[in-house]
């Protein structure tokens, strides 16, 4: 098969790099968490695309012969999504507490505040 069969990995790499770029180039903490979410979704897409079989169907058993896609990545990602939202909520609550302690959620202003005290 040709190199074109790899396009799912390239989509994954592209999304992951967008998330990574947001994470390291933006100073706003909420924006950073959104960047982490994009990063996370790119990994989900990687797993699900690896589980895909050409001509397959969703892994719910039916009568007769059928080709199913791989159920194992589905299970892993299903739980990872819900855990992801739980950890996102934890991160956001930390952001709220930082805002209340420093009065800002911009990274450089927080560092300036730390240096002053």
């Amino acid at each position, binding site marked *: 098969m040709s190199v074109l069969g790899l396009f799912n990995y390239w989509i994954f790499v592209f999304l992951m790099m967008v998330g990574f770029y947001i994470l390291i180039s933006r100073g706003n903490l909420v924006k950073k968490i959104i960047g982490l979410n994009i990063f996370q979704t790119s990994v989900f897409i990687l797993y699900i695309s690896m589980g895909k079989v050409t001509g397959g169907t969703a892994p*719910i058993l039916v009568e007769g012969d059928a080709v199913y896609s791989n159920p194992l990545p589905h299970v892993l990602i299903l739980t990872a999504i*819900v855990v992801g939202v739980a950890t996102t909520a934890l991160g956001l609550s930390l952001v709220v507490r930082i805002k209340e302690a420093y009065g800002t959620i911009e990274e450089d202003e927080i560092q300036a505040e730390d240096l002053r005290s």
Partner: protein
Amino acid sequence: MEDRVILRVGAKILIPYILLFALYVQFHGDYGPGGGFQAGVIFASAFILYALIYGLAHARRVLPLELATFCAALGVVIFAGVGIVTLLKGGLFLEYGVLRHDPVHGQHLGILLVELGVFTTVFGSMVAFFYSFAGRRTGRS
């Protein structure tokens, strides 16, 4: 948002169906897409809708934060409890086959209980998250 009639009536119509759909997703998870994780989130979203439309104070009277966190803990207890029951019945941890005489029936029962535990935890935690973030705002002067 307490004075918006359309929103209030619309939410009142929608909420029972959201709750019902969550239970459908929960118990039909064996046959179609769905299961404890999705059902818990949908069930919680009904409460979140109620809190958004009718105000957080009303929602907290229906389901206090303490009850939500208790649900989150209870789900873990149900899940681990199923494992301990299978231990006591002579199986391995979380080996549902020993719950009934017929292993397949045991698997059915085990999966049902475990999904119930997942549902309770996810529901309780999503509601607790929402209460924590929304309740912070009312605390602001």
